[in-house]
């Protein structure tokens, strides 16, 4: 049982780390603001989600597990809305520049 839990953690956290890697490569390599924003919000939010998924089997209680999930939900909400606002700011800056 403990082994199975550890396996889930191992796989999910590794996958999460991979998405953080992908997001960072995107940030470093993509040419302009909008594509970099895309790399940041999509890949990193998925990475955080997988890390949360991997930590769920290690959580001490149901309450901790629920809090972990709400951390991810908050991050998703922030990613979805803030990225739009930043993208608009970027477009405005490009048209007025």
């Amino acid at each position, binding site marked *: 049982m403990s082994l199975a839990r550890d396996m889930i953690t191992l796989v999910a956290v590794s996958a999460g780390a991979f998405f953080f890697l992908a997001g960072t490569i995107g940030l470093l390599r993509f040419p302009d603001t909008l594509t970099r924003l895309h790399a940041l919000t999509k890949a990193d939010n998925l990475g955080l989600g997988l890390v949360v998924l991997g930590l769920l089997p290690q959580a001490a209680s149901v309450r901790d597990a629920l809090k972990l999930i709400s951390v991810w939900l*908050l991050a998703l*909400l922030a990613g979805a*809305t803030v990225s*739009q*606002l930043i993208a608009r700011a970027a477009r405005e800056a490009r048209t007025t520049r």
Partner: protein
Amino acid sequence: MNIASTFELMLAAVVLGLGIWTIAVHETYSAAVGFVAYGLLVALIWVRLDAVDVALTEAAISGGLGGVLLLGAAARLRHAELMVAEVPDRLTRVSAAVLSVMTAAALVGAVLWLPDSAPTLAPEVVANAWATSLTNPVTNVLMAFRAMDTMLEKVVLLLAIIGVWSLAPDTAWGGRPGPRHRADPNGVLVFLARLLPPAGIAIAVYILWTGANHPGGAFQGGAILAAMWLLAVMAGLTDTPAVGRRWLRLILVAGPALFLVVGLGGLWFGTAFLAYPTAQAKPLIVVIEVAMIQTIAATLGLLLTGAPERSAKP
């Protein structure tokens, strides 16, 4: 060198890099952005130092609210600051560098040569925890053993807000601080500002409540409440209140006033100023904290919005 200490080196390096960026970067707006990132990341160091109460405070007050305060000022001073070109001469910079390096070296010496097991008050705090029946040692120190410090700190907050308000120009005396924000009522920002504050308020109340036995408390919860209120203000959902309002002033003094009343009650009924009767210690502390979270949230939020700028009458 094992994995754990490599991670610590890396965390210290990231935070140091942000610190250097904050001091060295040319533009003030970028420095303020760097400082926000710095303040949020320092919370990780505090978690590693096993001081979660401080981690919460640093993340909420220092990084979040303090960073945004500096950022707002940087945005408003942007045009004025570009004009300033008087960089200090070489001699000043070199002597400043020498002084800074010497100070840092002295502190490094202190860190390295002070005894590794420092004298500690932790056992005494634990031994006296029965007096309040709270199990979070930091809350015990803040609210009971050193309650005087915490009460005076509320007075400092009050003095700061009086100082900020007294900078208002005559035309806006007692008026509303900050500009009136507007946003598309069907837009993304308003959507977020309607959705996030309920969750934020629930989390703030949870942080206040859990502070009795686990890390948390009125400061951290109050800072979250202030951030949620400012979010609604930035989305144009609500306006800042005119600072001359009586209800507002009542909220601002409620926390320290209740603290003072309880303290004088200790002098009257008990043995000393701020001495809680043991049986009622926990309810009294909870009542003070509930009053304080409102005062703290209002004070922090209003400190961020600054001096009144618009007349109270629209």
